């Protein structure tokens, strides 16, 4: 007589779940008020009309040869801004990584790091934190003031923010790996660059490259965003087309953009698999 018990009809933990749902709603309420969260305004008469009209113009997407040529040129410009930005970011990140990596410290081989190198490394780290905490859009707004509208501001903005990010993550990757080989090289009198090139780099090259490729993909996405503050590229066109309610153009550019991101995603996945 050991029939399985029938499953209980009621959730045994219902009281706790009810409490947490209630608590979440109480927390959510002030947020709904602060963000003026009124979904019904989306369907009110004065917003429904323009929205439907704008969405109606999405079809058919604009495919005039002139416009397609323009979109192709702006798309390349986005890729170019991202590539140039990442290249300059490497110019910032590689020296900063070399200067801030603890593994490459000679004084740290025998106990504590000497105070001066320790202070230098900490200073470089703080500089990197500062570079990457300012969003790239804010850097772009600043540089648009100095160098004027155009891709220069976008490239510089990406270079600074991504330089900070790459520098930090490179440092983390190098320090999380195995260090005895590098330390043996340093202890036997090799220079820091030699120890880096023959000890640290070969071990971590695949991971470093794969992170760089991933960041390049992110940079393409943010180069489009930078277009909205005047750095050129698809973003700028998208901004002006939206303001003129040219739905067909917006539809084409969104499609191109989704395709571009998918392509960069595919390329970066392929590269990372090839490196692994």
């Amino acid at each position: 007589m050991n029939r399985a018990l029938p499953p209980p009809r009621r959730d045994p933990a219902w009281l706790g779940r009810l409490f947490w749902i209630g608590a979440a709603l109480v927390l959510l309420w002030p947020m709904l008020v602060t963000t003026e969260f009124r979904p019904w305004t989306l369907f009110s008469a004065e917003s429904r009309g323009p929205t439907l009209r704008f969405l109606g113009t999405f079809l058919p997407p604009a495919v005039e040869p002139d416009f397609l040529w323009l979109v192709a040129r702006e798309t390349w410009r986005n890729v170019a801004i991202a590539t140039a930005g990442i290249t300059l970011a490497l110019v910032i990140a590689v020296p900063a990584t070399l200067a801030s990596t603890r593994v490459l410290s000679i004084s740290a081989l025998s106990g504590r790091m000497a105070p001066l190198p320790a202070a230098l490394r900490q200073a470089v780290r703080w500089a990197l934190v500062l570079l990457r905490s300012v969003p790239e859009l804010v850097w772009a707004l600043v540089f648009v003031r100095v160098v004027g509208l155009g891709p220069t501001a976008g490239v510089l903005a990406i270079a600074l923010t991504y330089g900070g990010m790459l520098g930090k993550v490179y440092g983390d990757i190098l320090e999380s790996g195995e260090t005895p080989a590098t330390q043996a090289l340093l202890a036997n009198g090799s220079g820091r660059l030699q120890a880096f090139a023959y000890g640290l780099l070969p071990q971590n090259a695949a991971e470093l490259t794969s992170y760089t490729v991933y960041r390049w993909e992110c940079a393409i996405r943010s180069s489009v965003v930078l277009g909205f503050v005047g750095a050129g590229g698809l973003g700028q066109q998208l901004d002006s087309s939206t303001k003129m309610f040219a739905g067909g153009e917006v539809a084409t550019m969104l499609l191109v953009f989704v395709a571009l991101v998918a392509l960069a995603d595919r390329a970066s996945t392929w590269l990372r698999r090839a490196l692994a």
Partner: protein
Amino acid sequence: MKPARVDNVANAAANRPYRLPPPLFDARCKACWFGLGLVVLVVASFWSLDLQWAAFLSRDAAHSMARFVGEFFPPDVSPAFVRKVAVASVETLAMSALGTVLAAAGGLVLALPASRAREGDRALARAPTRLLLNALRAVPELVWAALLLISAGLGPFAGTLALALHTTGVLGRLFAEAMENASRGPADALRAQGIGRVRVFLYATLPQVLPQLVSYTLYRWENNIRAAAILGVVGAGGLGQLLSFHMGLFQMGKTATVLVAMLLLVALVDALSYAARRVLAR
């Protein structure tokens, strides 16, 4: 005597035949072609952009840069303005948190059709749902916000929706992967008892993946606070709106205050999320 064995030992002891390394410029050498392509891409990028280094590196630019940075000081700390910045900060925080919560709910709803519930599940909706998630994810928050301004009007509501849409795409995909990777055992056991799909999900799959889903959501919240801080540049509320307004009027002291508030807010959310993850990991 066992000649075969001796033979084996002799083979193992002999040196391997020496092979030449592959020639450097081999047509099949993938790395060389990749490196070449990379160099071409970088050179073409710099060449086609006509970057104004002259304008940036000239003495004039250095002067105007220095003056520009100098104008940031002193930041405006009059009580009235600080109060305004505080209100905008709270708005930004609420936008990011609500956007993330909505996205977690939306991502969970979309992750169900986007994942295979069991071995041999045909999951007809999997491919179209993943396409939708990818499209949501590919369009950045700022672009969503610019498009949503038309129907939601200026203000934080458009920004919240924009964050929610983009993050739904990101979280939906991550959630779907987490559910597919969860161990099938508990779900199969419940299914064998004849329990319905909804309860199998609620009592077998969800409890397994919940910690992972929460940690993904917290991580996205850290990203969203950064995004929410700048969404206002296109008019979607929060600190970004103050920033672009005062920068447009060249009131650099006020701009500096807003920037400091942004940095503090990002640091605060990072700390909160780190603490929450520590508590969850315990």
